[in-house]
């Protein structure tokens, strides 16, 4: 590989990693608060892709993007209220099954409504504009994704660490019951978590699919799994961890694909998961949690 192609691949990798990071944030936040692997998150991401397809058919992108984000947030909150809230007191496995049920429902609903055939993803022309720096060329979305990811993460970190709402979120994730006793409105905090997660998933979906060209009812599954692995890799419950994990997975996947091992790039992600679970179960920057009896 020449240095130009290496730089090209690094750029693609960072861009993919940025999209992964945004989705991974949704997993990490929900897991941090509800101790739930939100299997439906990958399908929220997929649905955001479809929303964009339909929104762009009737309106220009500056209106379509905020609308898609709003609709995705609505979907995320509705799922939380309908499928997870009634099960707060139930065993954790029930909520997990419920989230799988939602994922199954969204996939089947998408197949029913939009058919299983791939739908072409609309091109957002400014995002597709190609830039040439030296001998490296890339579209705007490639440069924009990591920058946007970092900006969003800084805002989110500020929200979590320096506002009252963030303090409440941290309290709930530290100790659910005590937080409740201290007068924190648990349900509100959980809704906020889903709002943030779904918004990030919607933005991630726009950035991800702009490079992919098409959406199918199952195109959320694999990226969703990878993003969960990214969250575990960085340390589940931690936002910077999710971002770090997202970038690591995005870059390594791009390089494996470039070297001709695209079949094994997915396998590599799960090898990473197994390795991290053996050697550092709390993730790269996660904190150690002691189990209380």
């Amino acid at each position: 590989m020449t240095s130009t192609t290496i730089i090209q691949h690094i750029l693609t990798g960072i861009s993919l990693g940025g999209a992964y990071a945004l989705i991974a944030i949704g997993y990490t936040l929900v897991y941090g608060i509800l101790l739930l692997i939100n299997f439906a998150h990958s399908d929220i991401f997929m649905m955001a892709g479809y929303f964009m397809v339909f929104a762009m058919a009737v309106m220009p992108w500056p209106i379509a993007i905020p609308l898609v984000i709003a609709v995705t947030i609505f979907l995320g909150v509705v799922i939380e209220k309908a499928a997870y809230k009634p099960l707060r007191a139930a065993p954790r496995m029930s909520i997990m099954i419920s989230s799988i049920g939602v994922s199954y429902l969204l996939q089947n609903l998408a197949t029913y409504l939009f058919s299983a055939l791939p739908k072409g993803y609309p091109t957002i022309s400014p995002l597709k504009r190609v830039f040439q720096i030296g001998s490296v060329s890339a579209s705007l979305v490639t440069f924009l994704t990591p920058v946007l990811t970092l900006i969003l993460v800084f805002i989110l970190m500020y929200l979590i660490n320096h506002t009252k709402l963030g303090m409440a979120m941290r309290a709930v994730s530290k100790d659910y019951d005590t937080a409740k006793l201290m007068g924190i409105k648990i349900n509100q905090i959980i809704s906020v978590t889903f709002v943030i997660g779904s918004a990030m998933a919607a933005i991630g979906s726009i950035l991800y699919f702009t490079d992919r060209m098409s959406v199918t009812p199952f195109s959320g599954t694999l990226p969703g799994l990878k993003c969960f692995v990214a969250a575990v890799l960085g340390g589940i419950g931690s936002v910077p961890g999710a971002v770090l994990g997202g970038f690591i997975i995005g870059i390594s996947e791009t390089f494996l694909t470039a070297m001709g091992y695209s079949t094994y790039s997915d396998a590599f992600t799960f090898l990473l998961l197994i390795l991290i679970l053996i050697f550092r179960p709390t993730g790269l920057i996660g904190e150690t949690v002691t189990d209380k009896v």
Partner: protein
Amino acid sequence: MLRSMTKKSTTLLNLTAVVVLVTLLYLLEINKNSFGMAVSILQKSVILSIVAVSMNLLNGFTGLFSLGQAGFMAIGAYITAIFSISSDTIDSVYYTSGLAPWLMSFKLGLDVFPSAIRILFGLLLGGVVAGLFAALIGIPVLRLKSDYLAIATLGFSEIIRAILSSPQMDQITNGSYGLKNIPGFAIESDFLPVGTGSLLVPFAIAALCITFMVMLIKSSYGRAFMAIREDGVAAEAMGINLLKHKELSFIVSSFMTAIAGGLLAMFMRSIDARTFQISMTYDILLIVVIGGLGSITGSILSAFLVTASKEWWLRFFDQPLITGGITIPLFRTGFRMVVFSVLLMVVVLFFRRGLMGNREFSWSALLSWPKRMPKAKKGANKRG
């Protein structure tokens, strides 16, 4: 009086039921041409009931959550297929790149045995390989919070699918073309009527597998599984080796799932990697949840009910429905699956116990049910 049924009468009822069932199955299978739909539904149901029970063993009894069913089934299906396709037609199956020479010579060596032995060998080997993979995944993952098992197994099943269809595996799995010409269940013999075995064989294998799992659950291992499900820390304090028991449950479950996968290959006669997508795992979860987590008979019952309604009774959901000249707009391809996913959500949210809760089927409960309708709830909570 009925409640205090003696052990003898229960045995008698069980025996009668088995005899009736075997006769019915035999009559159905030798008249396969007129009952084609029923036969294939029964075949599929009984195969899925093995997977459902093995998922229940892990999920309902041990409290672990594996989502790797499709992957383990794929392992079983491919291995069984490779060993059961007859060596004469194998070249037409692997028409692009041919079967790997080492595998071919191994297959030719096995040809001295009758085909039933070869198929059995394939099924068992599939189970063993799946069990080995389960052990390997289990060692790092089961030490930790069991949440990770769901993700690790889900990932595993996707990887297996990718690897099976990759071009590097062309000489073994025939890559993306899949395998065909897999023999069915029917026993070919000059003395038996055509079709004999097409139901009895899968039912017998399923009975064997399910009996094994029931015996495991009723043994001291099974009680340890349930202790782990209720409270891992307390179970450990009572001297139960957590990792060992979790591994055992996971390995047995994966082994049985792979056997069912092998049977599924024989049922479908041709397989490819797309058969074993994540939606297959979800379909099985649907069966287990509807049957009731922690009830073996519930899983079996629900495997038959769900399969029959999905493949047969509710087929009309996917066809356009026209009543009195008006086309009802909802009915079209895919609607059936939407109905099933809504049903799953309804069961998860409102009827968390499913059909059977954690009870098991018993004759006394069934016979006394009509008389005891108003009090059914009280008596039913007792474990049979």
